[in-house]
């Protein structure tokens, strides 16, 4: 309600800011990206399987847990080529670690690396991230589950060791999203888990009241869990101490970023069936909720959080997908940061409202023109020709019905529900608007998308896309755009800061544009993008300035070469 009350004023201000900070002549040059589906050619011949359940409620539970198709990008062997970890969810089905061979092909090495497991009879793999929790320079792997998570330590030489038992990460939860970031700036990456259901084991259901108690304002979800990295190979649950213990929503995604430019990482929590939450970091190990002032409360179905400065005004904005279809008009939300502690939703005005049944969304500059585009995947369930909604309606409108009781929900059977939806590619026009060109650029597939990861598989400065799909095969889109702009790509290595450099703010000036990027630790539903900072700089053949603010607070200014991949170490500058 608060949001609606001030939207008029804020919208005018937002549009003014969006236009005002875009220098004349710096608009999109008219280039468009182009992608090829090279999945099979690349050797990625797998498909995801959603978990099946036994018993009379099995069909409904499967419908409610039809995620789990995740991808995480990381260079686990530090060979300069980013690799892929991709999850499955069915019992006994392996996860996959695709080693990048450097020639646009991949080899699944999960079994020999020791990271294929996780889908046991009492656990469902749901998400994964790479993060170097012990700062040894080797990316470690966290596999999130409906169950207990698995922490794999990277031993080097392509081998991993399950260190969960000694890590403290042994508590059961129905985790659907996880990000790594250093919330207390102590140099070690912490973990924020987004939990969908409360911590009950759905695979051995004892009480049927496990579903949302309200479909627009549910209060019986799993909330979030914040684990602080002790720096000694273990984690402590500091959720309540940090002020995050009161979230009771059905968290589907969590995202972090420095929303108020004070050097501290803040949090956005996207919840299904009810309001999202915004928390600012107090800098003392705690957060304060500012939702009411920042965005207002909402009743939507928050599915994804990605954070980026879409209009190059120096402030991080937030994109949240919701459900927008013929029967439900919940626009996605593009929260434009006004810099005064408030955000205004400009999704309709800039053209990124209609995503279908949205899942992951990721900003990236795919044509290197200096403006970040937006790729969104969608679709819940593509099955038979019958639609689930007419079957669902009588239940929804039954007076006094208890939505939380799984017995009250009709089976979906072979019916579709918001299926066969075309993916959206919103091309940033550089004038505070986007144009949807998914068909033109070749990414408008109709699979049941879940996760997105941005990757540069061949280090050519043109960003590629991995799309995961529920119960279907993933897609690897190779960026084959011609006539793209010049680019800068950085690998950050913290020393006093966390080794991954997550949370580092990079500001680049070139061609009359000032852009910022902040390296995130897994923002976006079911997908972690590469640990590199990428800038497109259009026709500029040099950069004017590049400034890094490390999480430690150290600020460094560099000159870096363009059109090549550069490693930068905190305190040492360019290292190769």
């Amino acid at each position, binding site marked *: 309600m608060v949001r609606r009350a001030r939207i008029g004023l804020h919208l005018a201000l937002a549009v003014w800011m969006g236009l005002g900070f875009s220098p004349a002549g710096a608009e999109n040059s008219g280039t468009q990206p182009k992608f090829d589906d090279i999945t099979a050619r690349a050797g990625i011949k797998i498909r995801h399987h959603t978990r099946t359940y036994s018993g009379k409620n099995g069909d409904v539970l499967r419908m409610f847990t039809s995620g789990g198709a995740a991808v995480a990008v990381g260079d686990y062997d530090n060979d300069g080529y980013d690799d892929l970890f991709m999850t499955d969810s069915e019992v006994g089905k392996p996860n996959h670690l695709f080693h990048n061979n450097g020639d646009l092909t991949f080899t699944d090495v999960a079994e020999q690396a020791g990271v294929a497991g996780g889908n046991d009879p009492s656990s469902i793999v749901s998400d994964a991230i790479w993060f170097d929790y012990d700062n040894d320079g080797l990316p470690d792997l966290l596999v999130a589950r409906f169950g207990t998570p698995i922490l794999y330590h990277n031993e080097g030489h392509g081998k991993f060791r399950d260190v969960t038992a000694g890590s403290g990460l042994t508590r059961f939860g129905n985790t659907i999203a996880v990000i790594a970031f250093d919330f207390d700036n102590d140099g070690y990456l912490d973990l924020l888990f987004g939990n969908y259901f409360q911590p009950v084991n759905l695979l051995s259901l004892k009480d049927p009241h496990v579903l949302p108690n309200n479909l*627009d304002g549910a209060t019986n979800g799993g909330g979030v869990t914040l684990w602080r990295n002790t720096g000694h190979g273990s984690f402590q649950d500091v959720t309540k101490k940090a002020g995050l213990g009161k979230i009771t929503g059905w968290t589907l995604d969590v995202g972090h970023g420095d929303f108020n430019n004070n050097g501290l990482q803040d949090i956005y929590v996207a919840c299904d069936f009810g309001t999202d939450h915004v928390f600012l970091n107090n800098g003392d190990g705690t957060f304060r909720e500012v939702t009411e002032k920042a965005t207002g409360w909402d*009743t939507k*179905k928050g599915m994804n959080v990605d954070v980026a400065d879409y209009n190059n005004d120096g402030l991080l904005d937030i994109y949240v997908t919701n459900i927008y279809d013929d029967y439900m008009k*919940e626009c996605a939300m593009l929260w434009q940061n006004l810099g005064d502690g408030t955000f205004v939703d400009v999704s309709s005005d800039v053209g990124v409202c209609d995503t279908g049944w949205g899942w992951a969304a990721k900003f990236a500059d795919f044509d290197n023109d200096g403006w970040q585009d937006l790729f969104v995947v969608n679709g819940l369930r593509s099955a038979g020709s019958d639609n689930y909604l*007419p079957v669902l*309606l009588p239940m*929804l409108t039954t007076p006094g019905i208890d939505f939380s009781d799984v017995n009250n929900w009709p089976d979906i059977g072979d019916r579709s529900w918001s299926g066969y939806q075309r993916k959206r590619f919103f091309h940033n026009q550089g004038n505070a608007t986007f144009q949807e060109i998914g068909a033109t650029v070749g990414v408008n597939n109709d699979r049941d998308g879940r996760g997105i990861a941005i990757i540069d598989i061949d280090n050519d400065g043109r960003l590629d896309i991995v799309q995961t799909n529920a119960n279907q095969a993933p897609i690897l889109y190779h960026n084959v755009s011609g006539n793209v702009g010049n680019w800068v790509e950085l690998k950050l290595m913290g020393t006093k800061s966390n080794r991954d450099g997550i949370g580092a703010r990079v500001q680049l000036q070139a061609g009359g544009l000032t852009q910022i990027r902040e390296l995130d630790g897994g923002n976006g539903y079911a997908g972690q993008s590469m640990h590199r900072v990428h800038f497109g700089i259009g026709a500029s053949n040099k950069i004017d300035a590049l400034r890094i603010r490390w999480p430690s607070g150290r600020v460094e200014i560099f000159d870096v070469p363009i059109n090549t991949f550069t490693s930068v170490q905190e305190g040492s500058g360019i290292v190769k």
Partner: protein
Amino acid sequence: MRKLKSVLLVMIAATTVSMASPAADANFRDAMSAVQANDLGKAMHCLELAIADDPENVRYASEYRQVAIRSKDFDRSIDYFSKLVANHPRSANLHLNYGFAYVDKIPAAGSITQVILANNALGEFTKAVEIYPNWIALYTRGASYLFWPKIFNKAPLGVADLEKALALQKRGPTKPYYVRTYIALGDGYCKTEQMERAKEIWKEGLSKFPNDSRLKDRLALHGDQLVTLIENNFDPNKRVDTDLREIWLDARE
């Protein structure tokens, strides 16, 4: 019989002015004074008293809901009508306003709640039609069907109601608000993929209401532009005008 129904419609509307009890009328005047003073709580209280005294008064109930919209006290309005229809189950006017009270809350609700509210409203509109199938009941229910997403296939039901409403209104003198039927029926034809019939009914409407911009806009557009114009009118996040002022103003004239 048909003529009698049309007369009754006018009589219902006319009660807003001529048949109010003195107590109800006094409460209504107090309510309007409270509205002027922006004391919406008092206004709602006084209107509740007025409606309780005169449940068939279209104006009292309509004004009450408009105050509820201003004060965002939708649940109070719903609760009030819920209790009142329990005491007056044969009052078409109360069922109609009870349905409108649900409709009034829709833009302020979440998307799933919107479906529930719309379904509840439809139930009340149906009761109103069953009790007294006059123009306003048929028009209201017919129009409400058109808000439902295509997958639920309710638009044909809306067209059927609106055709009956149109037939009723043609039997008596033209009222300014009758233009709504032409607009909605054309929209219904559009939603049921009968574009030619849509154009015909809008043209017929324009011949009777030559200055209506809504009809002109529809007749001026084609294809996707026309569909977009129509669909925008059925966005559940936009407030539907449920103010029945036109009816009692017409009755007073």
